[in-house]
């Protein structure tokens, strides 16, 4: 039997259970519409401004960094899987198996170090830090 | 090695001058240009070649070195001189030296660049006359254009941009046509040639190795190539109807550039016609075109003269008269006789000297008066007797006054044309061309009379005084050469006929 049929079945179940709960709740729950209920919750105050707020650029930096490293793990996984077999077979030396991965990771780590030093993962900068930044350039 | 030295000195000199400060550039260029001039005169005296370069003659100062191999074809550095090219090399080196001296006065802006370009032109001109490999020749041929384009465009007169571009476009399109045609010819020759060396191609042509190319049969191909190349060179010469760039270029160019343009650059065209069209192709290919070419030549002579008659700009007069003079050269070439071709070659040298002289004289007057209009400068004879005297002497040279080289040249040409068996109706053509002489005499005298004699009526009375020595000296040198060649044409004519005779033998005439 194919594994994926079972997984698909679980996906279906995973969808049906929430839907079922929603259906049950729909039958049970009351509905008393009232405008103020539906207002955005801002600690009881009248909501101010829109929700599309500007947020810290660092979120974006981190997302980009993640993209790089996530993809990198995707590329490392095949290597990790065959590693044991490759080590056990005598056809290739340990160096030949290890070196490409080390080179790959080292390049990535250089990238990380660069991002680190250039403040990509620096969440908040104090005024002093910003000033220092300005002086350096 | 001599030719390499000539070219190398000019090239290095050009570079050095380009980088030199403006103040000393003129003197430096002059000093440098003396080296090739002196060397070429020595080469002239030491000339030991015989026969025609393309027809298996003995070359003087020959040298050959591998350059590029392209598939089946070798492209080589192949230079050498024969009797027809050596005089032109000497003409080039001397004229360049004199042109440099004559530029001292008029050129007062960006001198180092100017003299650098002039020396660069010299190097390439020597190359054009000495190269015996098609590619090498073509490289030099085209390399002349760029500096000349810049010379006209930067230091020229009010309409210099138009003139420069016109010159550039005309000559370049012509080159492209000629180049394409020649390549087609070489491809048509197929395996029978292994290089672009001109003697080899000539030999293959003579041996009738021409095959077909893209469906064109050998004869058609050869004829088409002949026409295309003729047109390509005709633009350069220039002859009617491809002459319109010439007056513009001459008029707008600064005096030294005009000197070089008229003196040497035009000869590139006629020289190429001699080398390629009339040496390389078998007579049966040329035959159908003899009459048209002769007609074009005569038309050039007369039409050029007529146009000159109508001009009021002195430089323009000289320019159009060049068209006329070049017509003689074509006529001489197409006559296919010893005197015809030899005379044509002689005329190349002679016209180079005379037109150079004329332009220099006009330039000197212009330096003082800032006008070239015939009507404006009347009465100049009083103010600038020497310059005007030389101008008149040049005009006489043009007219073919005996004892001047022009006389000898024209005499040879007419003689050669008259006795031609190759050219049908030769006497008629000759007679018509001779009629050109009358017109030339007419317009030159007319112009001189209007221009330099008569009442002084320059509107703004410039401080017109005697031209400085370095303006006048080159003209005397030229005049001396003109008279020397006029008195003793055999100085170079023997050399020339030596190179010309094989053409006629090969042409089975």
């Amino acid at each position, binding site marked *: *039997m194919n*594994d994926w*049929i*079972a*997984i698909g*079945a*679980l*996906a*279906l*179940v*995973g*969808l049906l*259970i*929430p839907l079922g*709960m*929603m259906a*049950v*709740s729909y039958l*049970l*729950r*009351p*509905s*008393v519409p009232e405008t103020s*209920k*539906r*207002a*955005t*919750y801002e*600690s009881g105050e009248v909501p101010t*401004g829109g*929700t599309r*707020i500007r*947020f810290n650029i660092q*979120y974006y930096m*981190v*997302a980009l*960094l*993640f993209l790089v490293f*996530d993809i990198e*793990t995707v590329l*490392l*996984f095949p290597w*990790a*899987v*065959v*590693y*044991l077999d490759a*080590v*056990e077979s005598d056809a290739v030396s*340990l160096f030949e*198996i*290890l070196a490409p991965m*080390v080179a790959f*990771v080292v390049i990535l*780590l250089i990238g990380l170090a660069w991002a*680190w030093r250039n403040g990509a*993962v*620096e*969440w*908040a900068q104090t005024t002093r830090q910003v000033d220092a930044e300005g002086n350096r350039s | 090695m001599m030719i390499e030295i000539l070219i190398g000195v000019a090239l290095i000199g050009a570079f050095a001058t380009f980088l030199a400060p403006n103040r000393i550039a003129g003197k430096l260029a002059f000093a440098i240009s003396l080296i090739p001039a002196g060397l070429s005169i020595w080469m002239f005296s030491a000339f030991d070649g015989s026969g025609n370069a393309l027809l298996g003659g003995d070359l003087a100062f020959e040298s050959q070195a591998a350059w590029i191999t392209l598939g089946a074809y070798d492209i080589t550095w192949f230079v050498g001189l024969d009797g027809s090219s050596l005089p032109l090399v000497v003409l080039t080196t001397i004229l360049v030296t004199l042109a440099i001296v004559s530029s001292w006065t008029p050129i007062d802006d960006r001198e180092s660049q100017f003299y650098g370009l002039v020396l660069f032109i010299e190097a390439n001109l020597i190359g054009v006359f000495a190269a015996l490999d098609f590619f090498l020749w073509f490289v030099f041929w085209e390399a002349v254009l760029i500096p000349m384009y810049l010379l006209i465009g930067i230091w020229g007169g009010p309409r210099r941009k138009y003139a420069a571009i016109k010159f550039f476009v005309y000559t370049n399109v012509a080159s492209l046509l000629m180049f394409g045609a020649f390549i087609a010819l070489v491809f048509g020759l197929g395996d029978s040639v292994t290089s672009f060396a001109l003697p080899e191609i000539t030999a293959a042509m003579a041996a009738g190795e021409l095959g077909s190319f893209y469906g064109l049969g050998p004869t058609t191909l050869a004829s088409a190539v002949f026409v295309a190349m003729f047109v390509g060179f005709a633009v350069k010469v220039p002859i009617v109807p491809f002459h319109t760039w010439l007056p513009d270029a001459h008029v707008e160019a600064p005096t030294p550039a005009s000197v070089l343009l008229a003196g040497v650059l035009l000869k590139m065209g006629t020289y190429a016609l001699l080398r390629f069209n009339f040496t390389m192709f078998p007579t049966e290919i040329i035959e159908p075109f003899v009459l048209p070419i002769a007609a074009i030549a005569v038309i050039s002579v007369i039409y050029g003269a007529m146009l000159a008659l109508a001009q009021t700009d002195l430089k323009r007069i000289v320019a159009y008269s060049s068209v006329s003079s070049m017509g003689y050269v074509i006529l001489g070439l197409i006559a296919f006789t010893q005197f015809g071709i030899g005379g044509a070659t002689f005329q190349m040298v002679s016209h180079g000297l005379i037109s150079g002289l004329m332009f220099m004289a006009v330039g000197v007057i212009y330096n003082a008066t800032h006008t070239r209009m015939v009507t404006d400068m009347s009465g100049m004879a009083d103010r600038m007797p020497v310059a005007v005297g030389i101008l008149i002497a040049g005009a006489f040279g043009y007219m073919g006054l005996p004892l001047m080289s022009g006389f000898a040249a024209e005499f040879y040409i007419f003689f050669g044309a008259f006795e031609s068996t190759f050219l049908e109706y030769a006497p008629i053509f000759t007679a018509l061309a001779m009629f050109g002489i009358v017109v030339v005499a007419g317009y030159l005298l007319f112009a001189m009379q209007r221009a330099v004699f008569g009442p002084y009526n320059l509107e703004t009375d410039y401080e017109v005084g005697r031209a400085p020595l370095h303006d006048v000296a080159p003209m005397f040198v030229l005049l001396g050469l003109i008279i020397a060649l006029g008195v003793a044409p055999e100085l170079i004519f023997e050399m020339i006929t030596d190179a010309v005779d094989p053409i006629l033998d090969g042409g089975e005439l």
Partner: protein
Amino acid sequence: MSAVTPLQNGDTVLLPERIADLTGLGEFGVAGELLAAFLGAFVIANLMMAMTGVAGPWAKRKITAAFTDRIAVNHLGPAGIFIIVADAVRLLSKENIIPENADRPAYDLAPIVIAGSALLGFAVIPMGSGIHLADPEVGLVFVFAVAGIASIGLVMAGYASGNKYSMLGGLRAVAQNVAYEIPLVVTGMSVVLFAGSLQMGTIVEAQAQPLVDLGVVSIPSWYALVNPFAFVLFLIANFAEVGRNPFDMPEAPAELIAGYQTEYSSVYFVLVYLGEFLHIFLGGAIIATIFLGGPAGPGPAELGIVWFLLKIWAVFLLTQWLRSAIPRVRIDQLIEIGWKGLLVLSFANLALTAAIVGVIA
């Protein structure tokens, strides 16, 4: 290293097949298989739902109370266990208030995604006693991938609510998930280096080899013992990944009201809440499977499920313990710990593991 042959499908008997055999559904061809698979999935999903049901309304309160020396729920049933039913009814029958700024389809989908993704992850977890829905060759990657879907649910919830706090909560959730996902996966990879396979069954089986044989007691080569460094890293990264203390930034009540779930109520809230607990259990299940030998334990193999649940609950207990014991980190500290600390350490761990595995072999 002993030769661990990757399991082919059929070496172990998976739950759907077992069901098919038991019920005779196997005779009905594809339809029967599908039905059996569906039944198996239903069993597993309900098992997990039941566990979260226990954990959410009851165990969590009890544990927290114990740590803070309080009593917590105790009225309904023995030790207040029936609070689960009461809470379920209460929450399901509440009015569902949908904020006016909500971005509707996304707002409705988010709870389903959060809950469903966690459930789906259990498909490849071998729970012992034959409760193992599927064992694809890429099991480990699959489970990481599916667990990662939750971030989409969180950001959908945060974005679609139309509330600033929700938005910030959703963003934080993503930033946190992405920061700790990589250490998590890379550390998981070091397990793969040992096992040489991504198949969950194989990984579990590889851990059954004895590490040290002390005659009577044979300590199994659980990767937590073989590679404790990786275990600790994975544990920490996992806490951040599922958003528990000290890394519960996305919902940090003190800062963001309730983060992305601020605007959710009624059944939607239940789903989001359950989804979170499911994720905690999924994290526990992964830890149990790849570091703690899965369902392995003393006694007959039939006890597997017991041992397995015990391990999951141990992890859960740990999360609650940390919740009571450790203060929350700041968001900037959180990100920096992730990128500058865990990531580097996890790579170091990977390289080290690779070297050790290489040298041993």
